Every structure is written in C-alpha cells, then in structure tokens.
C-alpha cells in the first residue's frame, strides 16, 4: 500500500516545507507554526488518500486476470495488467449506445434548463408585474418538495399523456411518453433552483441599460437575447456545468422509466441493470472496467471546468 500514497503525498511534503518557511499560517512561535503545518497537511493528505484510493482499487480490479481473481488468496496487485479489458468491455456491453444516450439526454436537459431558467429568472428580476412576488415565492417553495414525491405521479402522467405514443385524447390506448427520450428529459425541463440562481444574476444588470434599448425601439426578445443574456454569461456557464454533471449522474428516474426500454438506458443505469451479467467472479474485472469507463468522461469535463463547478456548489449557500 505504501507506494500508492507517494504521488498524493509528494506535493504535500513540498507544501509542508513552504508552509514551515513563511506565512500564511497564523503567527506564533516558529515551532508552533511547524506543528500546525504538519497537522494541517497530515490531515489533508490522509483525507485525500481516502478520497482517491477507492478509485485506484477499482482500476486495479479492472486489470486483474480471471486466474488472479480465483486464486486463494486472491491476488491484489495485477501481475499482468489486462488493459485489453477496456476494449473487450465495449464488445460485451452496449457502452457506446449508453454513452450516446447519456450525452443526448444530458445535453437536452441542460439546454432546456438553461433556457427556461434564464427566461424565468429574467422575468422575475427585470419586470414589475402583478403576481411577480407570488411566482417568486412559488419557485422558492417548490424547491422544498423532495424528489420522491414525484416518482409515482410522473410515471403515470407520462404513461397517460394524451395523443402521443398510441394514446387517445383521454390518454389511454398506448404507453404515452414512456419508452421515449421525452420521458427522460421533460420532467427535468425546468429547475426551480436554476430560476432562482439566474434571477440573482439578472438583478445585477442595471434597468437603465434595458430601458435605453427600449427607447431605441428594440423588442423585448431582442433585448433579452442580445443584451441581457450575454451579460450573464458566467451565470449560464455555472448553471450549465452544474446541471450537466448532475443529470449525467442521475440514476433513479432513468432506471424507473427505462427498465423495460434497454435502448434508452444511460451509462450508469445500463451498468446497474446489467449487473447480472457479471455474477461470476471471473468476469468481475470487466464489470470494473465498465465502471471506469462510466467515470472517465465526466471526470474529464470536471477537470476542464472545475473552476465553474466549484462556483456552482458554493453559490447555493450564498444569502439570497
């Protein structure tokens, strides 16, 4: 185990040396300062190991040979790493189909939520109309409703949606929207939190700017899309990255509506529902390879955009 800790520990050791040398550790005796630095970085390093080791455990698992798994006692460090498992798993499971579904569904939800949140937030922030306060309170209050309340009713609303999927005007005859991508996307078309967040960003735009455009004869939609929207770009990015990562990893609802529709399953849901294919110990390396594949795309997106993501996490706690 000792050698896995090295990569994570190396920067910590360097930081330790730096911290011992100067601020920003709070003043005090030099000995105390070093003691605090040691404590700080030991804690952070230990925590980081606990965060990272389970992932390495999964990677090692994906690289084991069936013989190594069946050996008594089982082999931990793969002697002959099976990198080929990452190729083979694409033959064994419809990973590309699941990947495409994940990408399509998540992109659709993100675009819809961005659009509805921006429009809704803009209306609540920049117009004075009867009912504005009521609408705002509704958006805030709706956030209080937990997701599990909606599982059953959403299922049947989609099932009995009129005039689609073989249903007649009364919503009977077919399967409605169940079994279509709409079942995965529509229930998440609006985010109350998103409206709330975008409203905050639009509040920062001065009214004079929009009124000046109105004086020049610009239409309301032109003002929204061409003037207001570009000014909240960072807000849109924050919301987009948050929504994308959240829905890429959404499992419960997708599983509920795609249990009988394998063509619509997303990456995590497919891996979960097909777990029966890996009951045999010898095949578990492939299962772990599939899990690696499901983690990797979003990890790359996250690493590229982590600055925005961090902003989106902490923005929820800021006083509204």
């Amino acid at each position: 185990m000792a050698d896995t800790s090295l990569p994570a520990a190396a920067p910590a050791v360097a930081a330790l040396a730096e911290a011992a040398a100067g601020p920003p550790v709070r003043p005090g005796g030099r000995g105390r300062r070093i003691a605090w630095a040691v404590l700080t970085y030991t804690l952070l390093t230990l925590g980081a190991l606990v965060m990272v080791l389970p992932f390495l455990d999964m990677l090692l698992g994906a690289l084991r040979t069936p013989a190594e798994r069946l050996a008594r006692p089982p082999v931990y460090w793969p002697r002959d790493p099976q990198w080929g498992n990452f190729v083979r798993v694409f033959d064994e499971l419809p990973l590309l189909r699941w990947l495409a579904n994940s990408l399509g569904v998540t992109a659709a939800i993100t675009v819809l939520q961005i659009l509805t949140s921006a429009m809704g937030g803009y209306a609540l922030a920049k117009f004075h109309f009867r009912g504005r306060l009521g609408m705002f309170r509704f958006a805030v209050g709706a956030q209080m409703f937990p997701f599990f309340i909606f599982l059953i009713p959403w299922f049947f609303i989609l099932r009995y949606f009129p005039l689609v999927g073989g249903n007649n005007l009364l919503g009977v005859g077919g399967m409605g929207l169940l079994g279509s991508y709409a079942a995965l996307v529509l229930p998440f078309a609006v985010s109350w939190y998103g409206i709330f967040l975008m409203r905050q960003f639009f509040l920062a735009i001065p009214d004079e700017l929009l009124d000046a455009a109105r004086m020049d004869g610009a239409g309301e939609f032109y003002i929204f899309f061409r003037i207001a929207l570009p000014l909240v770009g960072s807000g849109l990015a924050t919301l987009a990255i948050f929504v994308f990562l959240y829905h890429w990893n959404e499992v419960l609802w997708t599983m509920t509506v795609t249990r009988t529709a394998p063509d619509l399953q997303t990456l995590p849901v497919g891996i979960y529902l097909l777990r029966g294919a890996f009951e045999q110990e010898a095949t578990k390396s492939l299962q772990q390879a599939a899990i690696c594949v499901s983690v990797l795309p979003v990890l790359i997106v996250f690493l590229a955009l982590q600055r925005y993501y961090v902003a989106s996490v902490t923005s929820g706690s800021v006083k509204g």
Partner: protein
Amino acid sequence: MRAFLSSKKAAPWLFLSPVILFALVFFVLPVVFAAYVSLTTWDSLTPPRWVGLRNYEYLLTRDPVFLRTLWQTLYFAIGTLAIGVPLALVLAYAFSRSRHQGLWRVLYTVPMVTNIVAIGFIFWFVFRQTDGLLNRVLGLFGLPGPGWLTDPGLAMTSAILVFVWMELGRNMLLFAAGLGSIDESYYEAAKLDGAGHWQLFRFVTLPLLRPTLLFVVITGFISGMSYFTLMLVLFPGTQGGPSRAALTTGQYMYQMAFEDLRMGRASAVSYILFALVSVVTLIQLRVMRRGGVDAH
C-alpha cells in the same frame, strides 16, 4: 395582437410561459395526483378504489416494516451528519490554511462528479469481506475484517460511511467558503484579547459560520432522509440489505410502488416522509434562528 405580444406588459408572461406550463403539468398535477392516490388502493392496472385514510392508518399503526424503515432512515440521516459535518469542518479549516488549494479541491471533489452506480460498485468491492481493500488495510494493522455489507448490524453504518465520503468534498467547499467570508479583523481583535486557537474557533469561527452550518445541516438532512439509490447498488439482490437492515423509507416506497404495484400505499408513504422531513427542517430552522442566525 402582434404589438401586444412584443410589448413590455406581455413580455414577463411570455418569458414565464414555459415555466408555468411545466409547473402545471409536472408540479401541481403530480402533487395533487399523489395526494389523491394516497387515499385510494390502486395497482395501476385496474381503476383506483377510494379508501380514505386507511393507507395512512395501516402504515402508522399496523405495518411492522414501515416504522422500522423510518428509524433506519433517521439513523442514516443523522449518522451522516454526525460523522460528516465535523469531519468536513476540520478539513475545511485545514484546507483554508493550506497551499496548493487547487490540487486539494480536485482530490476532494472527484466523488461529487462520480455517478452513484460507480460509487456503489466501487464500495461494493472495497467492502468485500475476504479480499476487499478496507479489510486488507485493517489486516495490515492486525485488525479483524468484518462483513461490512453482509452483517445486519453493520450494513447501514457502511452505507453511512460511503455517503459521508460522497458528500465530504461538497461540505468541505461550503465550509471553506464560509470560513473565507469571516473578516480577519474579528480574529485580530480576539487575539489582542489573548484568545488561543481553540477559543478563536469556539468563540469567533463557529458563531460566524452558523449560516453555512445551517445550510449544510438542513440540505444534508433532507437529502439523507430521501436517499436510497446508494443502497440499491451496495446491496444488490436484497430487499434493502441483509435482513432489510439498510432499508430506508424511500426504498420501501419504491419497492411498494414499482415491484408490488401498491401505488396508493406507496403514495401515502411518500407524503408521511415528506411531512416528517418538513417538520424536522422547520424545527432545525427555528432552533438555529434562536441562536441568532437568519440565513435564507
């Protein structure tokens, strides 16, 4: 008509129209529908039959499993907070005084962007009794390796540990943001009065961190009370862990609805759970407010 549609008077309603439409179909209708269904017995194949409050009466007085799941759910929600919040706070304290924050941030937030199926399976392997990573590490120290996922007395605790692991980065970032917003002058003043490290933490940091603490505790409690996707993956092929020891109310409702097709009773479960969560959240808000906080 065209002139009206592009006027300033109509604009907010046009901008809000998708939201209003959505609210009617996917919010108001479901809330009313679920309330109605909870007063019926309905297998989703034949028309629902009105039974009044009988589902609620059955769950609260006769169902032996339901009350047990409520306790187990509370144990899970409170356990994750009791372990996770102090841990995140201590780490945030260390984090906000460290260098290379970008690196630490990435390491601690990776679980937040990992899908729950992957997390569940990762820990299913980590927790394996004979050859899992955790018991191997315990073995290095000569400690016995328990059956984390197979021992009914441990199953829910294992789920708590995974959940704490998942949420640690988020809570640490929230606390770090809270710590960062505390003005340095408070510390200077306290230090002039001779306050030590512990006193600084107890009398300056903690009171000023209350809004963040409130936010973390309340959102954590709500998500802990409604959570069960992790348990589905950690305990595959069971009805909520060994001897149902990791069965939460949410999962009980899910099984009732989508496996046993008891939509009426399941809807009643969801409303009871919702009521419970709301009441506890209001109490938390009240208590924290009395402590001099007015967040949100």
